[in-house]
């Protein structure tokens, strides 16, 4: 147990984070993008928990709760938008909604 260092935890968190980031980049489906964003948020929360455990303080967990709240709100709004996009374009392709280019 004592061999779990903060650095290990942070590396795991960043691996998860960049996997989520990669997901956002490579997927065209909006639904997958949202899922990947969730992964990124979760990874950030993981980093907070590790830091909280390192300093033995409750603040990391408090931050996780905030992130959780934010993720919930974000998913609700994001999915609502997604439904709208699907109704309008009959597809979940994010490139379809590209009318607002410069």
């Amino acid at each position, binding site marked *: 147990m004592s061999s779990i260092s903060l650095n290990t935890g942070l590396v795991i968190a960043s691996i998860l984070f960049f996997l989520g*980031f990669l997901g*956002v*980049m*490579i*997927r*065209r489906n909006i639904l997958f*993008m949202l899922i990947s964003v969730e992964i990124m948020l979760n990874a950030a929360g993981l980093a907070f928990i590790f830091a909280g455990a390192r300093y033995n303080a409750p603040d990391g967990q408090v931050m996780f709760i905030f992130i959780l709240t934010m993720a919930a709100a974000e998913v609700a709004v994001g999915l609502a938008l997604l439904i709208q996009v699907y109704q309008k374009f009959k597809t979940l392709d*994010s*490139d379809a*909604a*590209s*009318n*607002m*280019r*410069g």
Partner: protein
Amino acid sequence: MYDFLWLVPTLPFLGFLILALFGKKLGKTLSAFVGVGSIGIAALITILIGIRFLSSPPEGDAFVQTLWTWIAVDRFNVNIALHLDALSLVFTFVITFVGFWIHLYSVEYMADDESFSRFFAYMNLFVGAMLLLVLGDNLLLLYLGWEGVGLCSYLLIGFWYKDSANGYAARKAFIVTRVGDAAMAIGLFLLFYSFGTLNIEQILTQAPQTWSVGNNLAVIATLLLLGGAVGKSAQLPLQVWLPDAMAGPTPTSALIHAATMVTAGVYLIARMHGIYELAPVSMLVVAIVGAATLLVAGFAGITQVDIKRVLAYSTISQIGYMFLALGVGAWSAAIFHFMIHAFFKALLFLGAGAIILAQHHEQNMFKMGGLAKALPVTFWTFLIGSGSLAALPLVTAGFYSKDAIIWFAWSGEGGNIYLWAAAVFGAFITAFYTFRMVFVTFFGQQKIDVSHFPKWTIHVPLIVLAFFALFGGFIELPGTMGHFTLFSDFMKSALPAIEETAHENVSLEYFSQILTAVLALVSIYLAYVLYLKKQQIVTNFTDTSFGKGLQQFFLSGLGFDWLYERLFIRPYVWIARTNKRDFIDLFYVFLPWMSRQFHYAFSYTQSGKVRRYILGIALGAVVSITIVVIL
């Protein structure tokens, strides 16, 4: 009573605001009431304050009313404060009192004009700004008023803006005075640099301690201020704008371009007398400018055919007398002449206005004639004004004020015989062209029928001003005639008095006075002969090629316009034309061009595809984190 001082400049401003905002709704009668009433009440307050000032002068012979702080930055502190002493009291009195009569006169003169309330709005604004100029206790406030009157002058010269010539005259006046104002602004900077304050009293008390007599800085500062004064007061070499300024309505010419604004330069120099005394060179320059101007303008006045232009040149010439007086150190004589000049010149302009109104707006005097019978009140008051301008001996006020200047031009501190000779010769010319005007206009055959008979609103101002043009001079009599010095005693608290030694040589003073008087009478007789009895002589002379050329030369104001046209305007226009595509602009054209190119380049990245944006974020993150890692 002094506490009401702030009302004096405030009332005209208030009148301006009311007229500017609601002028159209008020109608002519109400506009006239507001416009004339505001000045009238201001004049009344001024007179009451003046009575109090005479009966029980305030402590230190000056009353300062600080209203509020205008600017306070580090050492730079400027208050909105009014400073009332003998000098500013005289100016305030003339501005409000003469101004009131001119406003009253305007009610009839402008009655048929469609922009009636606009006219009164400008006039009220002018009076307010002019009062600020003379009452301001610091140079910045003075400068504010200075520019304010310049603006009003511009607006009123171009009042009938539908005629492009009027607009041209307005621009000319504005630009030429701007040349002087720029010099004055630099002078103010210099004064602030030297004293760390713009408060006039502080500058005047500090100056003798900081600067010795003849100090270079003092000379430069006073010359720069003189530049401003020369521009505003239409003195050589910036006198070219005033004759053209006659394009404005005649009451404007009376108020702004004769009685008040053009004497602002006199006020400025008198106000800053403390530093001028430290720069004898500048004093000499002031005197020479005055002497040269009075001669140049006099010659130009001889040949003018437009009645208002004759008066304009006479104004330039009379202000030249004031400058001469300032230059030789006869401060109170200059202010005395200013006051008397304001009375008779306003009278003459108003009289000329009545004539123009009666002659279908004809301004060429040679097309008029024989108006003495048709317009008796105008004739007699105009005659009094002309007599005063020509310094008709003993009976007119102009004689006493001008005589003082002529005598001090010789005997005063900086006076010499050349200045005296110029002044005497100037008086001779003045009498000549003044009575040429009178004879041509009022005598001989009547050529145009009278279209407008003046009512009381014109007659009353004329009569009141004529009264002052006749009897205003008796408050100051020369050393040879009773030596009655009410006015200069009054001015003593604000301006240094002339030394008693000036009056030692009594026989010379008699000689000077008698010579001036005789010359004035001779020249009036000459005008009588040449323009009423034997006009043949004049026409014969002007028919010769030399005479014709001389006439043209004088008519054009001694060719100053011609000279400036070639010296400044054409090269400037040439530069402007050749440099139409300003090469400095290239840089500024390049900037938007570059940003537009960037815009096109970046707009390609705006694909509307979210994945691309995220890729961009990733690239940016790579770059910035790489920088962090490497560093």
